[in-house]
């Protein structure tokens, strides 16, 4: 261990007046999944595109698998593969044609390429759709062919740009399984995501980025410790009991309890989930009827609020082209 798959120092990229990436330092060790978490427009895609040699950084340095992304772009390209955020296969072609195209470009002979394409389609459960145009695929199938296209030749490092954005939960689970399978075989995966639970489930380490800068980095446990374990949401039967409930909860949880706009609801950021059970018991002892309660992981918004003091804002994407 200790070998770094990706190392960047002060990586910067601007488009006109927009500082898409404003000095990113990353150290990603080989093996495992590294998650880059941030809202739209935070600079995730721009960062990945620089690492995959598609964009030249304005300033700073980046080494991928020991090669400089500018000076040794070609060496980087032979060792990594990229699955972009938008369909990174040709939608007019069929599944098998897409894979054969890449196999041929990467040096397979036609017969071997055909065999490779068939094997990949089989492994990704797409054999029945092999001769259908990709534009007729469902969202989940499209994502799988995207990822399969990145695996035509073995890569030491795979970039997945928002692999599950817009997928239904079942397809999302399948993508997660694929990512876990890749890692089990020793591939390093760098993925970007807008979903905290995705980063939490998959990534060994997470970098949170906002306005083109890394604002927090660590394992998901470390990060949670810094922004709390989540929040408790409670709904009461009677609005007139809310003040009393607020007092009880604040007493047991020892945090601030926020009344929400809903006149019967309360929420609180909690640091210790163990206390929640006691707090709820205390409410019922006090004769306060709770109709609903939920204990949730902090949302991306809450993470950002905790880390930056401002909610994650949806800036219009300028780096998506």
């Amino acid at each position: 261990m200790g070998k770094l798959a990706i190392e960047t120092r002060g990586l910067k990229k601007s488009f006109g007046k927009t500082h898409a990436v404003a000095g990113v330092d990353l150290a990603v060790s080989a093996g495992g999944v590294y998650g880059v978490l941030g809202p739209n427009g935070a600079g995730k895609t721009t960062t990945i595109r620089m690492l995959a040699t598609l964009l030249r950084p304005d300033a700073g340095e980046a080494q991928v698998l020991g090669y400089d992304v500018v000076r040794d772009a070609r060496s980087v390209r032979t060792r990594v593969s990229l699955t972009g955020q938008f369909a990174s296969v040709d939608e007019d072609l069929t599944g098998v044609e897409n894979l054969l195209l890449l196999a041929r470009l990467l040096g397979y002979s036609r017969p071997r390429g055909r065999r490779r394409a068939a094997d990949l389609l089989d492994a990704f459960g797409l054999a029945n759709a092999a001769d259908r145009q990709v534009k007729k695929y469902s969202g989940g199938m499209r994502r799988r062919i995207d990822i399969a296209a990145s695996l035509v030749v073995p890569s030491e490092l795979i970039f997945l740009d928002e692999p599950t954005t817009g997928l239904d939960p079942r397809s999302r689970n399948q993508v997660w399984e694929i990512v876990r399978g890749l890692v089990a075989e020793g591939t390093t995966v760098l993925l970007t995501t807008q979903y905290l639970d995705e980063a939490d489930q998959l990534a060994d380490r997470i970098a949170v980025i906002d306005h083109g800068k890394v604002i927090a980095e660590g394992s998901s446990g470390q990060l949670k410790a810094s922004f709390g374990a989540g929040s408790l949401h409670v709904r009461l039967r009677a609005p007139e009991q809310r003040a009393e409930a607020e007092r009880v909860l604040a007493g047991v949880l020892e945090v601030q309890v926020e009344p929400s706009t809903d006149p019967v609801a309360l929420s609180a950021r909690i640091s210790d989930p163990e206390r929640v059970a006691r707090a709820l018991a205390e409410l019922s002892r006090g004769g306060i009827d709770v109709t609903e309660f939920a204990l949730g992981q902090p949302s991306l918004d809450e993470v950002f609020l905790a880390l930056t003091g401002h909610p994650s804002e949806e800036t219009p994407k300028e780096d998506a082209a």
Partner: protein
Amino acid sequence: MNATSAEQASPPVTEDALRGVLLAGERPPRPGPVSTSLTFGWRALLKIKHVPEQLVDVTMFPIMFTLMFAYLFGGALAGSTQEYLQFLLPGILVQANVMITMNTGITLNTDIQKGVFDRFRSLPVWRPSPLVGALLGDLVRYSIGSAIVIMLGLVLGFRPEGGAVGVVLSVALLLVFSFCLSWLWTMLSLILRTPNSVAGVSMMVMFPLTFVSNIFVDPKTMPGWLQAVIEVNPITHLATVVRGLMHGSVPAGEIGWVLVSSVLLVAVFGPITMVLYRNKK
């Protein structure tokens, strides 16, 4: 943890299958520029197969132009449609091809916006090959357009004195020139943002380029300054050569001119295109 029963509809990705396919992957030796360009050319042909509508311009343009010019101007310019057709058809062939090349830029502009180009650019292949391949695929389109013009001409009464050999040679030269001229459109397609603006600007280049030439009429009756402009327009030389070859003479000097201007077009617009392509965001 693996497949749940809800996933039966489409077969799930199992860990075993994934491991198998990952382990079976090999990294063959890297193919050369010719091989990767031809592979991208194959992609262009597949796209014609899947989206045959894109052949509308190569079929409709040439038919429309040949019929319109032959019947509208034939009588007035050369006394009869038949007479004019002998002069016009080689010229129309040039114009049809130049018009079809425009589409290269528009198609590329649409194509390059898509995610798949990111993948192409991140592959360890000779960098111009996606563009060269697209242009090679377009040669098929030019050939179809040329065949349509020539067949229509033969039906209408065009009689090339140079015979089949002259016709084939002139089309071959036309393909070379079209391939080289396409680099102008690829450059535009990388500078301009939308396919519409590419189409607009291309038209502005295209119309003077083809009309201010000897495609439609002999420039002898035009003012001197205009003749001078026509003389330096490479399209004029191309039309002269195509006309000569089809009617049985081999204008060697003019052929040299066409080849030189072809090389110049690639030498100028090829590198600019590649720099733009490399720095594309």
